């Protein structure tokens, strides 16, 4: 069975890392195999669990592994791979002075969310044996770009494929007239476009699947609400549904009215403000024991 994917998203500083850590520990206590992945380039999980993490998952408890995605590693790795393929396929690499152009590409905007997407793809393939994979996401802007990337990319790829088909059919006419038969040589760019469309379709399906759950984290304040409402709207635009809403550092026992009105089809959970700092596996466990009612509403 494929693992369930849980994303923790929200404004910077509302406690995505803390709530995702609490949820991970809670779920792993119920003997389910959990992988907690920090996708925020400014990693926090190492501070919360007071343990060093990296690309290789580290065990925190019996059923809980934690991994930090190293964005720079993925960008570097990806550029290296692309450069290698170019060297293999191009015959005049030096004539274009391509190396210089290529060195500039690594500073292009947009590579960061692509690196996250590559890491995400790798994770869901590598850790198919887990019950739940929990993603502690970066603040709103990067996260929204990450989610919309497959959708935007598909629009581009489909248009490019149409143009490529058009070019290919004209090339076929030329070869038919010139050498009397249709070109049998395969168009590599077209093949690559088709492969990419297949991959991105797959990724988009992942985001839209019922196994993918989005948890929107916010605090009990106006600024946090308005950003949460905007995130909801943006996600609806691309067809992604928010599963539950977590109001973190909450002083009151009641769900704020604005939140209840806006998120009437979502599960809502209140994470009470902790009287002591939530650092280390033990402290998180104590918090869960004290506030067990949080998990009545959500899983």
């Amino acid at each position, binding site marked *: 069975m494929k693992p369930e994917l849980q994303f923790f998203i929200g404004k910077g500083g509302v406690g995505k890392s803390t709530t995702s850590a609490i949820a991970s520990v809670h779920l792993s206590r119920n003997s389910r195999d959990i992988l907690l992945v920090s996708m925020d380039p400014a990693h926090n999980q190492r501070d919360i669990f007071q343990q060093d993490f990296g690309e290789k998952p580290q065990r925190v408890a019996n059923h809980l592994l934690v991994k930090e995605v190293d964005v720079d590693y993925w960008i570097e790795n*990806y*550029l290296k791979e*692309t450069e290698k*393929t*170019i060297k*293999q*396929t*191009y*015959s*005049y690499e030096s004539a*274009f002075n391509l190396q210089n*152009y290529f060195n500039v*590409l690594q500073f*292009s*905007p*947009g*590579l960061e969310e*692509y690196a996250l997407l590559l890491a995400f793809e790798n994770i869901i393939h590598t850790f198919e044996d887990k019950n739940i994979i929990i993603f502690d996401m970066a603040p709103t802007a990067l996260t929204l770009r990450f989610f919309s*990337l497959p959708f*935007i*990319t598909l629009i*581009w*790829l489909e248009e*490019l494929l149409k*143009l*490529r088909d*058009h*070019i290919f059919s*004209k*090339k076929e*006419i*030329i070869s038919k*007239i*010139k050498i009397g038969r249709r070109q049998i040589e395969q168009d*590599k*760019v077209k093949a*690559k*476009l088709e492969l*990419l469309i297949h991959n991105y379709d797959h990724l988009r399906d992942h985001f839209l699947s019922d196994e993918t759950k989005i948890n929107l984290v916010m605090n009990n304040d106006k600024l946090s609400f308005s950003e949460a409402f905007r995130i909801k709207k943006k996600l609806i635009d691309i067809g992604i549904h928010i599963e539950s809403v977590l109001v973190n550092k909450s002083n009151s026992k009641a769900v704020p009215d604005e939140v209840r009105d806006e998120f009437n089809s979502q599960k809502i959970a209140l994470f009470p403000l902790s009287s002591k700092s939530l650092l280390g596996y033990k402290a998180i466990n104590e918090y869960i024991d004290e506030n067990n009612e949080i998990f009545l509403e959500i899983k």
Partner: protein
Amino acid sequence: MMPIAKTIKNKIVSAFHVADEVMRSKAVETIEYEVGELDNIFAILVLGAFIGIPSPPIHITMELLPEMENEFEIMLEKVSTAHDPLGDLFSVLDID
């Protein structure tokens, strides 16, 4: 058959072949030019970043770049003849 007759026949056949090839090339000249233009448009869409035109999401460029040597070449060539696009077109259409 006499060797001389055979030679003449071969010459005529090969002349026809050449004429056929020339005619066929002539027939597709315009459409080849069009394909070149389309290839250029495709290259500009994907590789525009290299000649200063805002490009698609950069990862699309990166993914397709390894397979696009020809288009890359066409694009750079077109950039260098960009000062005289009409001359380029007229020469294909046989306009003096």
